[in-house]
Every structure is written in C-alpha cells, then in structure tokens.
C-alpha cells in the first residue's frame, strides 16, 4: 500500500533531498510559508541559510555552486522576492552556474488577477533561465524538481526557476520520488563526428605557434588535469579568461596569464601572432576579444565547447569540437605529437618583462605614496600561501584581484564575469564559505559594491562564517572613475562617494575589523585578519586615483594596449 499522502510542500522538500540537496539559501514570505513550515521538520538534514535579501540568496547559491560543483538552491517567496532574485538568476545564466530557484506564487485560482504579491515570474525569467516552469498542481512536483536539477546541471549549466503556486504547496499527494536523465527535446551534450578529433589534432600538430585560451568550461567540466596533460604534451602556452582563472595554477610553466581588457600584455599580443588558437570552454566575450575585426585574423581557430550555439557566434571557427572538454581534451591529447615550442614560449618573456617594468612593479612593490590595490592583494594572497578561494566584487577590485591574486588550487575564483554584478561579492563569499568551509575565503570589494549588499553582514554574523573581507577603499566608484579620467575628460560625474565608518558597521554585526591608511601598518593588519578563523573586515584606504593597467580600451584591437604613464 502507498504511504500516507503528504502536502506539496513536504513533497518539494522530499524531492530536493532526493537530488542530494543539503543546503538552501533564501528568505521566507507569504506565498511560500507552507514550504518553510515543512522545512521546520528537516532542520537536521537541510541547512537553511537566511540571507538578508533575495539577491543575496541567489548570489550565495552561486558562490556555493561554483566552489562545490553542486547545484545551488534558493527558496524565496513571490512578487518582490522573485524580482529581487532576478539579478542572481541573470548572473547565473551568463556565467553558466547551476541554480534551482524556487519562488512562491499565489494560488492557481488567483493567477492573472493582480493578486497580492503576484508577478509573472515565468514570463520575467524565461529570457534568463535554461528553464522556467510554474507548478500548479502537487502531482507535478516530483517531476518538475527532477527535471529542474537535470536541466540546471547537465550540458552547459544554468539557472532554472520553479514558480510554486500556493495551492500546490498545500494540496495532498501520494509522493513518489522521480528521476530525470533524459528529455527528448534537450540534447545537453551535442553529438560529435569522430573525424573532428583528428582534424583538431592535425591542426595542432602542424602548428608552429599554438596558443590556448582557457575558460570556465574547464572548471565546470572538472577537466583541470586533462587540460594540463593536453598542454604539456604539445607544449602549448595558455592564457585564461576571468572565469577560467584557477583552472591552472598561477605558477604553472605554460600559464601565461590573463586575457582581455585588463589582461596581461603577452596573451593579448600573442593572440594576434599565434597560428592556431585553441579556445577551450570559453565564449569569446567582448571583454576578451576587443574589436572582432582585428582579432586573431592570422590564426586557425579550434573552438571546444559544450554549447553549439557558441560556435561561430563571435569568432569564426576552423574546427569546432563539441562536447564536454573532460572527454574531448583527452581524445585529442592522444592524437597529439609530443613536441616543444621553446622559442615561441620564450617569446612571451619580453612582454612579461615589459609589463613588470611598466605596470606590475609600481603596483605591487611601490616604495612610496599611497597604498596601491595591487600590493594589498599580493600581500594577502601571500599570507594565504596562494591557497585561498578568491571572491571579488566588480570593478577595479575585481580586475586587480584577478591580476595579482595567485592560485595553487582549482575552483578558487568566484566572480561575476558576464553580468558584472556589483554587490555580488559579500553574498557570493557567504556561499563559497558554506560550500567549502575548510578553505580560507578572501573577499575583495570596492567601497561601492560593498554597500550594495552590505546587509549580508547579518548573514555572516548569524551563520558565524569566517570570511576574510577586504575593502579596497578609494572613495570612488573606481572603474567608472577610471573611464571618466581616460575617456570623458576627467568629468567625475556621480562617482565620488561619502562613505560610512565601515569598521563601526562591521562591529555592529559583531565582526572584527581594522582600517589601514599607511603602508607601515598593512602587514600588521593582514596578520590580525588571519590571526583566527572568525570573520574579519580589513578596510584599506588605497590610492584615490588608482588606475588598472594594462588596458585595452573597449571596442579596440587586443594589441592596442595602454600602459599608463
């Protein structure tokens, strides 16, 4: 005989357990109360983290998903909660992060009546989700949840929204778990013609100056080892996109640095000198390519991606290798000749030296003047022995952190790449710490972004999360100010910020902190931050008019690199 019927809310929680969920981020409200009521009975099996805002819940779920490789789960209520969650959903879509976001919804009989806290969640989220579905009957729950997780994590991952009508939360049902590993209209990993591997390998074997671009696809596919074997065998220098950072250790001999607008000189110059360009799990974002009409025109392009819609989207490909790089990389590696490209690899050195002399030295080892962002980041990375998880907000802090933080471990770079969401930092760090509690989590924020989700300090306090937070404070919205300085005649429209006493705010949340304004006390401040495992806020008042260099101005060729004075 079947078991006693349970309510849709209990069926939802059982379905989540069935998917292995043990952590949920969110915020309760009217149209989701029955689900929270059910959760009350599962406190021992599911950790529920109450954020201070639904945007925070989605970014926390992103941070959690990115460090753990699992699906991040959020439960929030209807109406304004759903709209608050939109930023995180959009961010997860463009950065391919697996999320299942469950929003409350008014009862099915009230749909379309402008009921209290009713909003068209499915309509709003369709463009920014892999799948968005409204559950109107309790019978659909097990099916919809199984399908949601399958879609979120398979293929190119992304967010899924389940809009959960209140009547379905309350209605009774004979719950039976369901599993999903197939949808007939959905092909998560495209079919590939076996001849392609040989074509790709032949091209690489014939290359004199091969160059690999490493994207987040390597991290998502957990193909870090496969990547290394591939690069080692054919001796291919590689550079990374923002989200591809930490797929290779910083000191790996073939790791030549960052691509794009604020990337290293070598990788950008060599993009337009290589003969075969191998893009591995990356999507040729405009911040990487600059002007496409002047991008790698001399090179044959091999594009390896799991999403066939990325092929020829921005850069025309000679050979498209569809599939998960975890399997496609080793297949090609087998066909590669063991070679070395000593001269080609050494040709990066000249640019490294140039960049060190013109940019890096003064940024990380300044002898005098105001504190530089780069030196703070270098010192903190050092203090963590380059083993920490880096979380950034968006702007100068993000670019500086990407440039100067170093990595020994994979899955260690959490940032909002595609959407560039200011305010991502604090909640994403929360999710990262929850997903990897044994690791040090270092957050770098600007003074602007920190204040966009500053209320999440409450979550850090309540959950007692030992996150190490650093505000690189220049009292400006620094990246906008940088553009105003360089391209808008130094007209600093709405970028100067009067800031609060950040330490007093942290203290009010029972978080220790220290403010540093001179170079002499920086080491001591960092030491204090890492003195114990508790949360800490280090506010470093840095050079007010600092600029991130090198810089490829938007829309220009990747070889058009500004180095400052």
């Amino acid at each position, binding site marked *: 005989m079947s078991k006693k019927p349970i309510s849709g809310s209990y069926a939802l929680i059982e379905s989540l357990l069935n998917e292995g969920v043990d952590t949920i981020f969110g915020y309760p409200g009217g149209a989701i109360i029955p689900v929270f009521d059910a959760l009350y009975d599962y406190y021992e099996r599911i950790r529920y983290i109450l954020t201070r805002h639904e945007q925070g819940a989605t970014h926390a779920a992103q941070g959690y998903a990115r460090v753990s490789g699992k699906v991040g789960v959020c439960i929030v209520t209807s109406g304004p909660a759903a709209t608050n969650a939109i930023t995180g959903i959009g961010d997860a879509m463009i950065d391919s992060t697996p999320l299942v976001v469950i929003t409350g919804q008014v009862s099915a009989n009230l749909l379309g009546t402008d009921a209290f806290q009713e909003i068209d969640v*499915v*309509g709003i989220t*369709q*463009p920014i989700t*892999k*799948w*968005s579905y409204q559950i109107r009957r309790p019978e659909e729950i097990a099916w919809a949840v199984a399908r949601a997780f399958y*879609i979120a994590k398979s293929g190119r991952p992304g967010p899924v929204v389940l809009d959960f009508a209140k009547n379905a939360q309350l209605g009774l049902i004979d719950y039976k778990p369901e599993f999903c*590993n*197939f*949808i*007939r*209209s*959905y092909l998560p990993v495209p079919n590939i013609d076996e001849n392609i591997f040989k074509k790709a390998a032949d091209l690489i074997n014939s290359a004199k100056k091969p160059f690999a671009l490493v994207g987040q696809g390597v991290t998502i596919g957990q193909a870090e080892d496969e990547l290394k074997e591939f690069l080692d065998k054919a001796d291919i220098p590689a550079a990374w996109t923002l989200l591809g950072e930490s797929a290779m250790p910083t000191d790996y001999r073939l790791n030549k640095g960052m691509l794009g607008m604020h990337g290293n000189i070598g990788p950008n110059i060599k993009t337009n000198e290589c003969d075969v360009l191998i893009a591995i799990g990356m999507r040729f974002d405009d911040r990487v390519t600059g002007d496409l009409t002047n991008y790698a025109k001399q090179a044959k392009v091999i594009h390896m991606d799991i*999403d*066939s*819609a990325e092929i*020829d*989207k921005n850069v025309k490909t000679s050979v498209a290798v569809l599939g998960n790089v975890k399997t496609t990389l080793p297949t090609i590696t087998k066909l590669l000749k063991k070679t070395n490209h000593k001269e080609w690899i050494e040709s990066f050195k000249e640019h490294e030296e140039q960049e060190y002399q013109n940019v890096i030295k003064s940024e990380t080892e300044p002898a005098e003047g105001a504190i530089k962002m780069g030196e703070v980041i270098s010192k903190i990375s050092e203090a963590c022995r380059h083993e920490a998880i880096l979380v950034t907000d968006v702007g100068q802090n993000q670019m500086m952190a990407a440039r100067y933080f170093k990595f020994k471990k994979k899955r260690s770079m959490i940032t909002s790449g595609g959407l560039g969401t200011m305010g991502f930092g604090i909640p994403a760090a929360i999710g990262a710490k929850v997903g990897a509690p044994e690791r040090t989590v270092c957050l770098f924020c600007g003074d602007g972004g920190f204040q966009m989700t500053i209320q999440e300090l409450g979550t850090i306090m309540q959950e007692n999360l030992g996150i190490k937070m650093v505000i690189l404070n220049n009292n400006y919205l620094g990246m906008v100010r940088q553009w105003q300085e360089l391209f808008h005649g130094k007209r600093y429209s709405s970028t100067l910020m009067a800031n609060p006493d950040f330490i007093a705010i942290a203290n009010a949340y029972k978080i220790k902190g220290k403010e540093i304004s001179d170079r002499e006390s920086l080491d001591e401040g960092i030491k204090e931050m890492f003195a114990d495992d508790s949360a800490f806020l280090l506010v470093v008042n840095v050079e007010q008019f600092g600029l991130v260099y090198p810089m490829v101005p938007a829309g220009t060729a990747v070889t058009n690199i500004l180095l400052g004075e």
Partner: protein
Amino acid sequence: METKLYTVTIFSENTPGLLNQITIIFTRRQLNIETLSVSPSAIKGIHKFTITVETTLDSIQKVVKQIDKRVDILKAYYNTDDDLIYQEIALYKLATDKILSLGSIEALIRRYNVRILDITPTCVVIEKTGLYEETQELFEELQSSIGVLQFIRSGRVAITKSKVERLSDMLASIDECTKRKQID
C-alpha cells in the same frame, strides 16, 4: 550585409509559454517577425512554428541556434524561398452590390482562382490562396475598383522541397537514444 527573407521552422513540445520563449530571441536582436503561424504538426504532441523574418544569413544562423538551444524546442531550421513550397491564405470581404456591379464575377473567380466562402445580401467573403504577391495583387485590384470592406492574410505555411522529413529522422534518433538510456 545582404538581407533576405528567411523562413524559420520550429518543432516544439506543446508547453505553455513556448511562443514567448521563441519571440524574445527575435526581440533581443531587434528582428521584426514578418509572419508567424503556429499549429499542431503531423506528430501528436508536437507543435510547429513557421516564422518569416528579413535578415542576414549570419543573423539567422545565430537566431536559429539560440532557438534550438531552448529545452522545450525539438529542432529549429531556417530556409530560403528556393528550398520551400509555401503559401499564404487571404480573405476579402466585399460589398455584394459592388461586386455585382463589376459585371462578371465569374471572370474574377477564374482569373484569380478565388473561392467564395459566404454570400449575404450585404457582403461576400472570398478566399484566395497563394504567394504574398498574388494575394496582394488581388487586394490592390479590388481596393481600387470596388473597395474592400475587410481584409486578412495568414502567416506563411511552408514545406521543404526535399523528400526527407527531417523531424521524423530526428525523432527516430531520439527514440534510439531513449532505448539506449533505458538499457543503461
């Protein structure tokens, strides 16, 4: 770049909100849909969308890939007019007295291959099926001679000239895949 009229054919599951998922892909790129027609396909539970849009080859290729990528879409294709047999249907409402004043209604019917759908003492509804230019030519002639009370034209319906039914091929391979999954 040169623009052309492309016909996009989409096979999808019959789930609510599908049309929105498709149209927002055009909207995001500021592409104007010229015609749209939706109906159940020959295969039960699968709907077919036929959309025409004037754009470049590069743009239509990207749009079709983005549509194809949606979870509930089985397959999306694009074609140019050369690959297709296609028709539109148009209905014209005319005043009965005016149409009688034309003299020979028979000539009109023969010349344009028109069907009469309805006749009342006040109005006559006629139907013409054909290419856009043909239904338009009739409209213009009637409008200038006796006036058209109401006019409506459908979106394009199209069928490929090639013998192969692409969807059935695809469904067969899906069935194959399902069987393999079940064995696994």
